[in-house]
């Protein structure tokens, strides 16, 4: 037992209770030492003694830690390599003392050549090891570190929640076939994959047919309730991105912040006359309204936008839109469905909640100032076949411009949802190959040119019949 200093007296033991010096002080042992030579147990250490010892170890003034930290070890070296400032404090009247200036650099030549070189060499090799470790760490953990950072409150990813509808009209109303399952599985994977990269949350909501949303009740208004529910579930999030199931995020490398929210004032339009398929008269002209309500651009401040959506050829499109948590949004979600309006309009409102929103926008001036429109292809490109068959650059997905998202709107009416989704999934993968995959593909191409004959059967088989 080697102790650097004598142990302190311990109150419980009433004496020197160090096991090494006094095994079994009289005060703590009622028995005589004769019958039980070691009354403290086999190890001969009382609890008090052990505690005192461990206290000591913890409080031990260890062998000088002065030079063991990285910073303290290299502080001098670091500060020597810093640029030097002369702020006039050292030399009044502009006089420079030649002896003083640069004195630290005038080291003896012997040090520079002999001792310094070995030192430097040792440091350099250490640095190399550290660098290699950093590189390996980055290769293995870099992605997850970045993702975790984005998910953290600092990274800003928590501000966004993707709400993805699923299980449309599912349940007993309609059995889902293999194609419906494939659409659902792939679409959910796509949103999860995107959100994981940027630290967003995905909330897959169930659009199962329910009586309380059936006709004469409030058909298709589950969207409103689900948004409210999701807002309650994610109290930290600010923006909620509703996505229909038949959508595909093409570019995983676009973050919502960079793609949209950091430059809202450049890309949105508030004056609906810029693109107005519904011919909504804008701005409202009633004399009793305030100035902001009567101006075509509202208050012109992008931070007052609480609903961000795009229009397609038929008007508002709610297949992909953003709504921000706010009092205004609460009010909109609350007024979106009203029995008196619904009773009068449900035969006309073919697109239900979408038409109702258009109606609110058209008739109630309080709505307009908080609505911002994005050109459609920012968040909601259509495949050809939706909104016209020929390629329209304001509406349809443009391959060479790397559009963010494709919404296969209306594919369930006479088009092939899974076929379209499969095609866009493959195209997205092709566009977002890594350099390694690109190289492999090139080699494959070369190989196939020299050894033709193998059919691409596999790929066709993959498509679910």
């Amino acid at each position, binding site marked *: 037992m080697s102790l*650097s200093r004598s142990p302190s007296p311990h109150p419980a033991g009433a004496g020197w209770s160090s096991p090494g010096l006094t095994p079994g002080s009289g005060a703590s042992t009622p028995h005589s030492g004769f019958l039980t030579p070691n009354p403290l147990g086999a190890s001969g250490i009382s609890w008090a003694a052990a505690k005192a010892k461990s206290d000591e170890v913890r409080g031990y003034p260890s062998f000088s830690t002065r030079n063991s930290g990285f910073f303290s070890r290299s502080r001098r070296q670091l500060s020597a390599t810093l640029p030097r400032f002369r702020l006039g404090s050292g030399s009044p009247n502009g006089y420079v003392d030649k002896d003083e200036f640069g004195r630290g650099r005038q080291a003896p030549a012997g040090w520079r050549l002999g001792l310094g070189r070995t030192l430097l060499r040792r440091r350099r090799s250490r640095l190399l090891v550290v660098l290699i470790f950093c590189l390996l760490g980055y290769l293995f953990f870099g992605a997850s570190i970045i993702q975790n950072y984005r998910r953290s409150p600092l990274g800003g990813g928590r501000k966004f929640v993707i709400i993805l509808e699923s299980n449309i009209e599912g349940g007993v109303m309609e059995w889902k076939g293999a194609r419906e399952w494939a659409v659902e599985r792939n679409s959910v994977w796509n949103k999860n994959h995107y959100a994981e990269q940027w630290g967003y949350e995905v909330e897959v909501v169930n659009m199962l047919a329910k009586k309380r949303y059936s006709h004469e009740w409030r058909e298709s208004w589950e969207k409103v309730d689900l948004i409210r529910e999701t807002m309650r579930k994610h109290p930290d999030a600010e923006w909620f991105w509703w996505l229909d199931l038949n959508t595909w995020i093409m570019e995983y490398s676009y973050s919502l912040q960079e793609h949209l929210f950091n430059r809202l004032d450049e890309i949105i339009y508030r004056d609906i006359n810029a693109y107005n398929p519904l011919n909504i008269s804008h701005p409202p002209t009633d004399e009793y309204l305030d100035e902001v*309500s009567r101006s075509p651009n509202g208050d012109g401040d992008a931070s007052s936008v609480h609903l961000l959506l795009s229009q397609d050829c038929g008007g508002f499109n709610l297949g992909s839109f953003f709504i921000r948590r706010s*009092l205004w949004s609460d009010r909109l979600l609350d007024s979106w469905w009203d029995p008196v309006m619904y009773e009068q309009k449900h035969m006309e409102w073919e697109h239900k909640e979408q038409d109702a929103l258009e109606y609110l926008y058209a008739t109630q001036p309080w709505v307009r100032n908080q609505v911002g429109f994005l050109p459609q292809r920012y968040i909601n490109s259509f495949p050809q076949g939706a909104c016209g068959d020929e390629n329209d650059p304001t509406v349809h997905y443009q391959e060479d411009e790397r559009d963010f998202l494709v919404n296969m709107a209306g594919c369930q009416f006479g088009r092939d949802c899974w076929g379209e989704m499969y095609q866009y999934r493959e195209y997205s993968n092709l566009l977002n190959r890594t350099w390694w995959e690109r190289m492999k593909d090139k080699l494959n191409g070369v190989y196939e040119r020299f050894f033709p004959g193998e059919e691409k059967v596999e790929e066709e088989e993959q498509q679910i019949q």
Partner: protein
Amino acid sequence: MQFALPPRRTPIAPPYARSSRFSLQRRKQLKAVAILGLALLTVFFLLSQLFYTSTGTPAVPAGTASVVIVTVLDRAGFSDDYIQKIVKNREDYAKRHGYTNFFANVSDYETALDDAPKSWAVVPAVRHAMASHPYSKYFFHLDAHSLIMNPGKSLESHVLEKSRLESLMQKDVSIVPPDSIIKTFSHLQAEDVDLVITNDEEDMCPGSFILRQGDFAKYFLDFWFDPLYLSYNFAKAETHVLDHIVQWHPTILARLALVPQRIINSYSKDSSGAAVDGVYKDGDFVIRFLGCDTDTKRSCEKELEPYYRLWAGKLKNE
């Protein structure tokens, strides 16, 4: 041999260590840099604060009235003499407390009303008052067929002060009498209130309410005035729509304080439908002659006359 501490290395500094004089200078430099940096940060902080406040809420111009009294007059339907009495009554009250009056004409909103009953003009009138007095905080709508009988009471002390409102607010009470299942929120705080209103025996009373300027007011008025409500043929027009939206839309109910009827909405004894303890008693703030304009057997001018004299007499005595 055990040592308390490991033996120190030789205290002699290695030859390549810098002299203490140099490190003193370096320390001075670092200190100067630190002070400079701190000063810069402070300046930036102060500047940002300065700019933040300058772009914040716009300053209220001097002389802005805190309360605007909104009265919708039907100049075509009533004699000039009658209208003048109402105007005088409001102007006297406004002068006493430094409020502003906003007199609107039903005819101004005819295009917006379309074929809907004239009583709907309340809604665009209040919106209009807010647009023309953007810095005033409260808007007190009082139906034309009514008199302010106790002008000594200011709206602030009578209704709007926080502690007063807190004591007046009726919590967990059926919003539309007698037995609506929708009740006023029991956790409502006075500072969240944007709308102070009463109900009588049957309905909410849009004839007398106080609305705070802001986003809620725009939402509430625009939603209330939706064309689909105007065209729906509710029996009591805007009154029934108010009943409807208050019960169906919690975002409105959450901002609404229901106060006892006689606080801002006493009915004359000829008016039907007063709530329990809703009939005018001497000393009440206002008296309303509800229905005198729609009931062909009644005459607003006749009913108003005795109360107008009473009010004018009080005025002289002061």
